[in-house]
């Protein structure tokens, strides 16, 4: 089990944020912080990823994309939400085209505070996510309470 925690692969999706977090993720891949030390790779492929790293307040148009990405990831998986936007929308809270954070769409496991977080905080958050990931199993996770309508549409659960 502990060997598993040394190889988390990341899927990054920006759901309508300001790019600030994405810049910092790119910088975290760079030589100074180098998150590959922990075996983390930015795979960009939901089918081979373990950590869904979400940034942004989830605009209405990104909502279903985010859900699909989450469902395409095989279990065990965790969601790490980064930045203030993902927690209730941040500065975009209650705007008309914004879903007020990630937790209404996919279940969030770790929140990283900050706008934008320091890279040290990103590393901390990913490690925290890995800790939660260690405790998860192959069992299927449904998006219960997170909009079952789409799940029914794609046949993931019965009516």
């Amino acid at each position: 089990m502990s060997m598993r925690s040394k190889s988390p692969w990341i899927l990054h999706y920006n759901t309508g944020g300001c790019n600030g977090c994405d810049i910092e993720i790119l910088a975290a891949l760079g030589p100074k912080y180098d998150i590959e030390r922990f075996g983390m790779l930015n795979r960009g492929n939901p089918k081979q990823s373990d950590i869904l790293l979400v940034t942004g307040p989830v605009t209405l148009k990104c909502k279903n994309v985010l859900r699909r990405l989450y469902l395409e990831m095989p279990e065990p998986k965790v969601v790490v939400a980064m930045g203030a936007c993902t927690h209730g929308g941040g500065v975009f809270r209650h705007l008309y085209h914004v879903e007020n954070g990630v937790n209404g769409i996919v279940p969030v496991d770790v929140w990283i505070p900050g706008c934008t977080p320091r890279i040290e905080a990103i590393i901390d958050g990913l490690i925290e996510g890995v800790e939660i990931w260690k405790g998860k199993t192959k069992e299927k996770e449904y998006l219960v309470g997170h909009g079952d309508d789409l799940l029914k549409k794609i046949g993931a659960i019965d009516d």
Partner: protein
Amino acid sequence: MMAILFTLFAPIIGGFMYGIERVVKARMQSRIGPPLLQPFYDFVKLMEKRPMMVHSFHAFMGIVFFISTWFAMAVLMLGNDLLIAVFFHIISILALTIGAFSVRSSYSIMGAMRELIHLVSYEPVIILVVVAFYLVTGSFDYRMILSADTIPLLKLPLVFIALVGTIPMLLHKSPFDIAEAHQEIIGGPDIEYSGPFYEAVYTGRWIEYVYVFFLVFLFGGSNYFVGGLLVVFTFLLIMAIDNSTARLDYRKMLKFAWFILIPLAIVNIFFLALGGNS
């Protein structure tokens, strides 16, 4: 006995080579990089993922890729014929491409097409390498090559250069990582594999390392020290080239292989044949 052991441990040796590669690559980019055993951590992680497949044939083809690559290795070590091993390697790549064609992802189909172009580019050179070995040592048997009196490298310098030129194509390294092209088609043929099925493809790639660097090792002949040195040198060279080039277009790869590498190997073999007759 050694041959059987070597075949059995081929994935492990390949995994170590991949681990070393990742560390060296990170150091060349002035990073610390992952631990040496990282590929095996990935291995364990992928085994523990929920098996999720597009359809059973696709998943099966991924496993066929792994098995036939390993089988090519086994043929190389036990069947004692280099040429047959080369053809088994072709079968493994074909299995991968057939699997990739069988899903509807456009990235996968594009990756499969590029993979075939890879095959067309490097496989003639490798066959020429094997033929050159035959001309030098008079055998397709690797044991005969390894016990030959001469060091094949001295007679086949241009063939060796051609082989080094094809290694980036075979192992999907920059500048010829066209089929994998992480920023374009995100892994190409492997994109739709996940969990344990991706495991098969991932591990199959490690065996390719052993396969190709074994060919490099053969250039040392009976002098194992020269062979080992060649492997280390080639490995570092490939790493450094990987880190200092951009990805090229597949057209350029095909031109490079057919206009430079194949003539290079043929010229060498031609002179060898002339020298042998006179």
